[in-house]
């Protein structure tokens, strides 16, 4: 059976490179100041979708909600082998929490039409909430399997998935459609294919083409031109998806950052121990004296 998958991917700030200057006073992150990377779990999700397609046939569509910069992420999806990619973008989508994000993504998925599976990474490294997957599944009224570590089989409209639970694992059988969030261990993302990279590196989103066009007419011409070569990345705005202003972005987000405090660690001062046998020996003597060991 052919298996059509939609993969929800996200470009995230590289959290291994955080410094104090990237925080805004309101506690949100100034993403522009951080290098942006493919969220690691999402890359694994894409890999799993591609492996299923390679085995059973079908189509893999990657979608992301993000700013203009996310065009690069979608090109990377194409280089890995995604058949189609979509950018969901609008200035009103900014500041979205997981509820507003899942609503926006669910509207995009409804517009894409039919699918067998939706994949997402377990969580994104910039928030670690692991909420958008299940929230999207709820909005679409479909079942979910979170923390998937292996897809065991797919046949006759049923999928068999091994997932992690506290202290063990379970094997679940589900009907389709289904949303799956995947653990990093589930697969090793394939490298970019050189041939796809060469042929698809010129793929552009609407936002990217806007910068090259001097008039709306020219933009439409550019889009038609790119589309005819298979290089246009469809770009959907809030209006394209029929999303109400009050349900997206910061407006549609119930969670608010009320205050942010720098933690002044209780710097009462500590005892400096020299990194020598004598220094450490003295420390051990006092700890042994206080019965810390044994």
């Amino acid at each position, binding site marked *: 059976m052919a298996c059509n998958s939609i993969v929800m991917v996200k470009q995230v700030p590289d*959290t291994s490179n*955080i410094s*104090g200057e*990237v*925080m805004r006073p309101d*506690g949100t992150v100034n993403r522009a100041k951080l290098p942006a990377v493919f969220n690691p779990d999402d890359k694994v999700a894409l890999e799993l979708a591609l492996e299923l397609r390679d085995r059973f046939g079908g189509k893999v569509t990657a979608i992301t909600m993000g700013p203009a910069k996310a065009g690069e992420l979608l090109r990377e999806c194409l280089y890995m082998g995604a058949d189609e990619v979509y950018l969901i973008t609008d200035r009103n989508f900014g500041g979205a929490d*997981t*509820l507003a994000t899942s609503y926006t993504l669910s509207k995009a998925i409804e517009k894409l039409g039919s699918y067998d599976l939706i994949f997402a990474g377990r969580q994104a490294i910039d*928030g670690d*909430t*692991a*909420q*958008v*997957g*299940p*929230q*999207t*599944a*709820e*909005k679409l009224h479909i079942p*979910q*399997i*979170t923390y998937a570590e292996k897809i065991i089989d797919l046949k006759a409209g049923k999928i068999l998935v091994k997932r*992690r*639970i*506290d202290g*063990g*694992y*379970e*094997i*679940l*059988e*589900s009907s389709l459609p289904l949303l799956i969030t995947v653990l990093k261990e589930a697969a090793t993302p394939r490298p970019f294919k050189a041939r796809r990279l060469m042929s698809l590196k010129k793929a552009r989103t609407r936002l990217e083409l806007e910068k090259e066009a001097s008039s709306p007419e020219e933009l439409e011409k550019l889009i038609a031109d790119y589309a005819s070569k298979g290089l246009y990345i469809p770009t959907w705005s809030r209006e394209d998806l029929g999303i109400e202003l009050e349900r997206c972005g910061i407006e549609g987000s*119930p*969670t*608010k*950052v*009320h205050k*942010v*405090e*720098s*933690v002044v*660690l209780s*710097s009462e001062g*500590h*005892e*400096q*121990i*020299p*990194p*020598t*046998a004598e*220094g*450490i020996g003295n*420390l*051990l003597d006092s*700890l*042994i004296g206080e019965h*810390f*060991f044994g």
Partner: protein
Amino acid sequence: MDNGSREVWVFIEHHSGRPADVSLELLTKGRKLAEKLRGPLKGILIGHEVDAVAKEAFRFGADELLVVEHPDLRDYRTLPYSRILCELVEERQPRVILYGATFIGRDLAPRIASNSASGLTADCTDLQIGDVTWKKQQYQDLLLQIRPAFGGNIVATIITPDAKVQMATVREGVMEMVPLEAPCDGKITKILYEPKAADQLVRIVERHREEKRSNLKGASIVVAGGYGVGSKKTFDMLRELAAVIGAEIAGSRAAVDAGFISREQQVGQTGLTVRPKLYIACGISGAIQHVAGMQDANRIIAINSDPDAPIFDVCHYGIVGDVASVISIFTETYKKKLK
């Protein structure tokens, strides 16, 4: 958007007829929140043959349990559980719902939040009730959801002022677990479960589960390594030290990501919270996410090559130097003292 309710709910997770520790911890916390809200603390208990679990929930302070019992509900499955809870929330409108940040809680809570358009804050390290002025409006008795924020040593207070129901998840071990001094049996309200076709879309074929064997949570000495340990080889030196001094081994998230140690042994906001007598932090920079999981240790020794690492601000003893050589001296010196 105050819904007028003063009810605090705790989703009670259970395995093999026992409530999960995290649920008892949340009941302990929930008692304080409910008291502040001047409302009842209610436990949501879904399962089959859960009498013993109910008893424990009362012992930890639940005033009332909403019990949904059915053979089909013996093991957690997303769809029946989330549907049942969504319906209960819709019908009864609690003010606060707390979930353990477990595999189950993190699978379930987002569906309820999505369905009821509530806010949901993951991995809170503290919860309080307080009055807030937000955008020039006064809000009374909001749930203050406190958690370290992304990047830097920063703690954020999250609120959901316009949501009817306020929800949070909390990791196991973060809150204290204290039974009532004089426990009394609360009220059990049985809720009828009506199976629906959609509940059967996902079937459990096989399940394998062992009670956690990790001794880390209750360990009296913990040796923890961070990314600064540098290599698996040096991390093995920490394991040796731990074996010699009778400690449990742990790691920071960066050490887990680097493959030095398993995720089950991660200490910090997204891992375990530990309260040992002695915590030896090796090559750990001291981000707030890590400190949140170990700051209650009685005594902290920090070993780091960077004299400006924030870990030195929380430690009692600081050793500036190369982790491998300091650990080697530490282990050898301790062995000599034993003789």
